[in-house]
């Protein structure tokens, strides 16, 4: 096994130009139509990759995870990351690595063609190395994609719970969509933070856009109200639809202490009154 390893990397070193040419031919044939700039990038990447491969020390008993292969791993991670952002698929990205097999096979036939045993073990060595590199590329690709999804989820979570200022000292939190523990937690934290920042004494949580309320959600809302009161402000819950009102009573949730209003307009009117504002209509 170790012997064959020595051979592969030596082959790469010895026939570098030929390997690179054949590899380039193969890849560019597939890349037809992606533009000259992309082609130049591709050539640079191939050059660098072969460089890094060559530098891997010959005796490598522990395999691909070894520190010696770190530069190659980093290259593949960066390569995959760029490919994800450019919109390539995982197959296209991995092809970069897998297409290295054929040029390598061509060269080892030259080197070991006379001895079928050596040829076989060299073939196996190449297959092993290239497969590992290719799989690592795919894994790096997947991870980059997953990171993007994770980031987008966070952004979505933040976007969907804005705290708006309705008037001096009156904040509103319009909730839209289903409420789960994570979201409610975020809601609570951002609302409380804004109350401290603005010194608003009344917060209105509007749940017109919430389709259903179960015991857990009701409890979360109650906790939020309690926390707001603890801090020295007050809270009104508005936008309670008839079905939700029925559900809440049916579930036996105790909303005695909490001020609730059917519409945001009613809640605003109450909040204004409590804050000492009165609104009069100008006569025409």
């Amino acid at each position, binding site marked *: 096994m170790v012997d064959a390893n020595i051979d592969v990397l030596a082959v790469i070193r010895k026939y570098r130009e030929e390997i690179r040419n054949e590899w380039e031919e193969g890849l560019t044939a597939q890349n037809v139509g992606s533009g000259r700039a992309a082609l130049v990038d591709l050539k640079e990447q191939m050059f660098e990759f072969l460089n890094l491969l060559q530098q891997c020390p010959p005796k490598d008993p522990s395999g691909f995870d070894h520190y010696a292969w770190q530069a190659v791993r980093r290259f593949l991670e960066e390569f995959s990351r760029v490919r994800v952002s450019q919109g390539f698929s995982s197959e296209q990205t991995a092809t970069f690595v897998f297409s290295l097999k054929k040029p390598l096979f061509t060269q080892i036939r030259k080197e070991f063609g006379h001895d079928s045993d050596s040829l076989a073990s060299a073939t196996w060595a190449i297959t092993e190395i290239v497969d590992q590199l290719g799989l690592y590329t795919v894994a790096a690709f997947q991870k980059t994609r997953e990171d993007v999804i994770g980031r987008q989820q966070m952004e979505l979570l933040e976007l969907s719970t804005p705290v708006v200022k309705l008037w001096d000292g009156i904040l509103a939190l319009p909730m839209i969509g289903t409420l789960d523990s994570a979201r409610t937690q975020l809601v609570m934290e951002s609302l409380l933070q804004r109350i401290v920042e603005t010194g608003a004494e009344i917060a209105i949580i509007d749940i017109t856009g919430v389709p259903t309320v179960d015991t857990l959600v009701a409890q979360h809302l109650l906790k939020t109200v309690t926390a707001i009161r603890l*801090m020295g402000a007050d809270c009104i819950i508005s936008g309670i639809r008839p079905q939700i009102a029925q559900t809440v009573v049916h579930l036996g949730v105790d909303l005695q202490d909490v001020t609730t209003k059917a519409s945001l307009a009613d809640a605003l009117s109450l909040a204004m009154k409590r804050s000492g504002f009165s609104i009069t209509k100008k006569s025409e």
Partner: protein
Amino acid sequence: MGQFLLVTIQVEMHDQLAVGLQEDLASRVEKWGAKGVLIDISALEMVDSFIGRIIAHISSISHILGAETVLVGMQPAVAITLVELGLSLEGVRTALNVERGMEKLRQVLLKQEEFHGGD
């Protein structure tokens, strides 16, 4: 109107400090005949159940000694912790900051005077 006592908690309050505060406050309320106590906890970033209970006790003790207590400047993290711990701090008045706290104390004490028909 009697005097107001303002207590500002600047450092993270560990258990001994909290108990000490309780005793200290009680004796000062008595000594100076303070009618109102304002406890500013805006520098407290975290509380545990022990501190939470101490705060509630301080308020009750002051009340018994004839002073009203208002807690001001509670941070969101503290409020959330107290709610999660199930400590609702019954009977403890709160306000967002010192100014509002003073205003609240004045209103409370004014009402008391009216109720008791003046001193």
